[in-house]
């Protein structure tokens, strides 16, 4: 007599697989949702009319006619205005070049001073870093606004504002590049009996040279870009013209200036990225 095999025994494997519980989901899946919630709440608060910036579609719809007319004007550049934009644009470029040159001269010794490898004295190093952190926290246009009130309208306050800002950026980026360098050659210099100044001159400087030139180019780009708007506070360059045409709502002339700025900035970016490729 043959005992009929129970059907369920045919596939013990499959049965086991079906009843096995999947591995537990990783914990902490609520965290992204919490972060998302916090962001949503902050956004709602900042958009609310009482404490926030009062996002209102009404105003936009009401002013749409006016705005659309301005945009149409913007799309029809007044090319006869172009010759008048050239001298101020040149002034912007001059300011950018001068500011870059001056801040290069100031920033090179300071960056050596602000890096641990090239300045073992932590007091001086800390001092330079703290001062530059504070200087860097204020945007250059605010410096320009204050400097214009101090030294009068013109290119000089613009250049000073750019220099202040540039020194902060170059020193930060270059001193970080120095820190990431190999300490070996510097130790060799020390073992050979060099003073810190000699070591910096003979070993550290050739090492940081490419990154220094790189940052100077970057700063030149930044300077041209922000040099175009410094004139809005009276600090020289094409910004003065931007301020003038915007008070008369000559958006057809504004668009000529914007196109010119665009061309100059993008050309400069192409040139400096070509130079950078050669460096690296």
């Amino acid at each position, binding site marked *: 007599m043959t005992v009929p095999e129970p059907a369920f025994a045919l596939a013990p494997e499959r049965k086991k697989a079906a009843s096995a519980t999947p591995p537990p989901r990783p914990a902490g899946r609520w965290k992204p949702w919490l972060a998302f919630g916090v962001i949503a709440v902050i956004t709602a608060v900042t958009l609310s009319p009482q404490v926030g910036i009062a996002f209102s579609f009404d105003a936009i719809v009401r002013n749409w006619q006016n705005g659309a007319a301005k945009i149409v004007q913007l799309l029809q550049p007044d090319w006869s205005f172009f010759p008048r934009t050239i001298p101020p644009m040149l002034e912007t470029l001059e300011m950018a070049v001068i500011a870059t040159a001056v801040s290069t001269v100031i920033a090179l010794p300071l960056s050596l001073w602000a890096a641990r490898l090239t300045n073992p004295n932590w007091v001086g190093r800390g001092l330079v870093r703290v001062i530059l952190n504070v200087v860097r926290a204020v945007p250059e246009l605010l410096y320009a606004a204050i400097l214009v009130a101090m030294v009068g309208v013109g290119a000089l306050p613009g250049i000073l504002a750019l220099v202040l800002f540039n020194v902060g950026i170059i020193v930060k980026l270059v001193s970080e590049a120095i820190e990431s360098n190999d300490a070996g050659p510097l130790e060799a210099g020390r073992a050979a009996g060099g003073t810190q100044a000699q070591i910096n001159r003979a070993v550290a400087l050739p090492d940081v040279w490419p990154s220094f030139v790189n940052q100077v180019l970057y700063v030149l780009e930044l300077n041209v870009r922000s040099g175009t708007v410094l004139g809005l506070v009276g600090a020289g360059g094409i910004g003065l013209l931007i301020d003038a045409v915007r008070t008369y709502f000559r958006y057809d002339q*504004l668009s000529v200036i914007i196109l010119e700025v665009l061309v100059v900035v993008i050309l400069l970016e192409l040139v400096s990225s070509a130079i950078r490729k050669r460096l690296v």
Partner: protein
Amino acid sequence: MSAVAPPRPSRTRTRLVASVVCVVVVVAFWSVDINWARLGNLPSEIVRYLWLMFSAPDWSKLGEALYQTWRSVEMAWVGTVFGIIIATPLSFLAAKGFGPPPVQAALRGVFAVIRAVPEIIIAIIILSVTGLTPLTGALALAVGGIGTLGKWGFESIDGVPRGPIEAVRAAGGSTSQVLRWGVWPSASPEFLSFWLYRFEINVRASAVLGLIGVGGIGDMLTSYTQYRQWGVVGMLLIVVVIVTIALDAISGAIRRRITEGAPVHDLER
């Protein structure tokens, strides 16, 4: 026997570049319209003004300063959020292999153009629609943010390893599923960290936007500079520096936590 030293590497090109740079700098100095005589008493002037600003900062306006700072930070926040909402889908379209090639090229061009225009000019254009309100500032920052966020976005999507994407495709995933399960897991730390970085940039830029009158701390600073109330200006600068450094520190700490992962503790447990 005298060993011949190897010839020195040619330095003609270096010298050429150096002299061109020198000429450009000299020409710039020579042609710029500056009264150089004024430079002589500049240091003493600056010391005098620094003394006026910081010897006795005028703390009576601190309340208003904090309120205006809040408005600036709000502008920066809203600008960042709007920028993210607009730029993220666009950066997916601009990445290799997701959008059609013409759209890709066009979007990359648009990002480059936006990046070349300073936010303050974008604000001048927008204010004809929205007027001199903080909303203008926020929208200008959002539009300006599209340029940088879009660029960083497609660059980091291009850098995502292709394996997971192909795996999702092979399993029959749609494009949105590819983005969710193939791209997002490896791209999200970079996205989160440059979103925060853009917020830091916007905090600075929102202070600047005040200069054209959209409100916030920059607006207050220019007004008091024009009234020449140096005590208040000094106090405002102190507030700007502290707020900027504090927000940078918070956002920098979050960014490090995102890119470097959780700190390792309790290995024994």
